[in-house]
């Protein structure tokens, strides 16, 4: 729990003069579940977009496993083992649930144009193994029944789960989850977080997750950052967040 896996230093990103992410410095410990909370528009998703390479930071540095990753293209950052989900699930709607999982396979030999023609046997074998793995993950997230359905036919909560399953296929070291439990019923939300904790323990993953359902997040997180107007205004173990006066004022007070 002591090693730092992700670190940002003075990270800044603005849009038309408005600083959406303002001088953010934070660290995420390996094998932790770190939470990120804050009111709407406080810059949480922008921070995730900047870390995952969707936006280029204006200023500041990002280290992942000790390596600079700021300014890299999203797919490069992914290659280093940092994967993410989106607030509104961005599934491949017309592809089946299984195909959504399979797309995410890391370095699949059949995902190269020449191998498609020249190494069919090799990628076919790999494909079978990966399909097994995909189905196992689907079983864990209880979506294996829907494997042949197009992703567009899933319910909102199922889409969230599939997106989580999809990034798990990528064998990441760390996951950025943007509101994994938004828009699902409380029971399912709890289950999602139980799964996250289970995955953290079983697969030694690190999670950095935005969540509005603070009560659930606080049950599972090891450390929590609070964001407001683009800045980190507090950080603490979960049980102390609710006692922090500044946090209560800007955030919990609102609710």
């Amino acid at each position, binding site marked *: 729990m002591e090693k730092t896996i992700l670190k940002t230093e003075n990270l800044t990103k603005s849009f038309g003069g408005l600083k959406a992410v303002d001088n953010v410095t934070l660290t995420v410990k390996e094998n932790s579940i770190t939470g990120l909370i804050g009111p709407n528009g406080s810059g949480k998703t922008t921070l995730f977009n900047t870390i*995952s*390479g*969707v936006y280029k930071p204006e200023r500041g540095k990002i280290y992942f496993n000790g390596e600079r990753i700021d300014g890299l*293209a*999203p*797919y490069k*950052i*992914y*290659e280093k083992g940092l*994967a*993410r989900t*989106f607030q509104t699930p*961005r*599934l*491949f*709607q*017309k*592809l*089946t649930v*299984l*195909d*959504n999982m*399979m*797309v*995410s*396979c*890391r370095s*699949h030999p*059949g*995902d*190269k*144009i020449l*191998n*498609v*023609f020249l190494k069919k046997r090799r*990628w*076919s074998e790999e*494909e*079978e193994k*990966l*399909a*097994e793995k*995909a*189905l196992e993950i689907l*079983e864990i997230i209880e979506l*294996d*029944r829907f*494997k*042949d359905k197009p992703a567009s036919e899933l319910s909102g909560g199922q889409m969230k789960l599939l997106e989580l399953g*999809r*990034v798990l296929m*990528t064998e990441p070291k760390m996951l950025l989850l943007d509101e994994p439990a938004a828009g699902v019923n409380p029971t399912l939300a709890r289950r999602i977080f139980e799964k996250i904790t289970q995955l953290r323990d079983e697969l030694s993953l690190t999670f950095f997750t935005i969540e509005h359902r603070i009560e659930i997040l606080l049950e599972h997180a090891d450390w929590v950052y609070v964001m407001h107007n683009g800045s980190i205004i507090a950080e603490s173990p979960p049980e102390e967040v609710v006692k922090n006066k500044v946090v209560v004022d800007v955030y919990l007070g609102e609710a």
Partner: protein
Amino acid sequence: MSEPLIYVLDMAVFVGIFAILAVSLNLEYGFTGLANFGKVAFFMVGAYTSSILANMGFPYLACITVATFAAGFVGFVASLPALKLQADYLAIVTLAFGEILRFIFKNEEWIAGGVQGITVPSAITITGVPIQTMMLIQLTIVYAALAICYFIAQRVVNSPYGRTIRAIREDELAAQVLGKDVFKYKAQMFTLGSAMAGVSGSLFSQYVRFIDPYTFEPILTFTVWMMVILGGPANNLGVILGAVFVQALERGARIAKDYLLLPVDPHNLRVMIIGILIILILMYRPQGLFRESKVKTPALEVASKWKKRS
């Protein structure tokens, strides 16, 4: 042998040539989501390259091979700036590219005769055989090429690679954060699609034996688009049937003009029908006649066994 047979053979050759274009556009648009509005440009490169080489006395196999690579190369080069753009910009740029290329062939007489066009010597000369036999030989070559293109396209789309290009079509950003170098896939599909268009252009020039810049107007691109959207995007067999259907329709328009004595110019009638049909299909059956084909890989089999287990 009678005239109707020649007519049928002629139509069959055209169906084959256009089916290759439809399969190539399907790789780009149907599977990868690229709005290539300049398909005709790469067809044109293939046709002109092949014709110029044939005039220099090269054997046909050399003509069609070089034409394929030339069109693929031009496609690759054109894709470098174009594919960074969003769908609408890509459409404008590729459409303009085709028009400019056509303009260059029109203006620069030293390349291939400018507006006068260029006649293409037959690559296969067998003296003393009837026209029908010659057409059968042409037909065989065209369908052999179609079979190869179809095989290649099927192999590409029924693979993990084929899954990735469909994912890129569905959501580019999501594909990126899942580690896909989106630009690479798009450039590869654009290059492959352009190369196939080059094959088609070469076959076309060999068959019609005369090409000029007026052969390559944008309507050709959109005839192919109509085949794809009518047949069913992301279904290779569907778009080939789309090619059959659109060819039959075009011929039908010509016959209707001849026999019904419509007071309409046949060319105008043909284009007007294509225009209206494109709109009607998009309005009432945008998914086409055939549904998107599944990604057929060994994963499907693994999945079907899984069902029995649980």
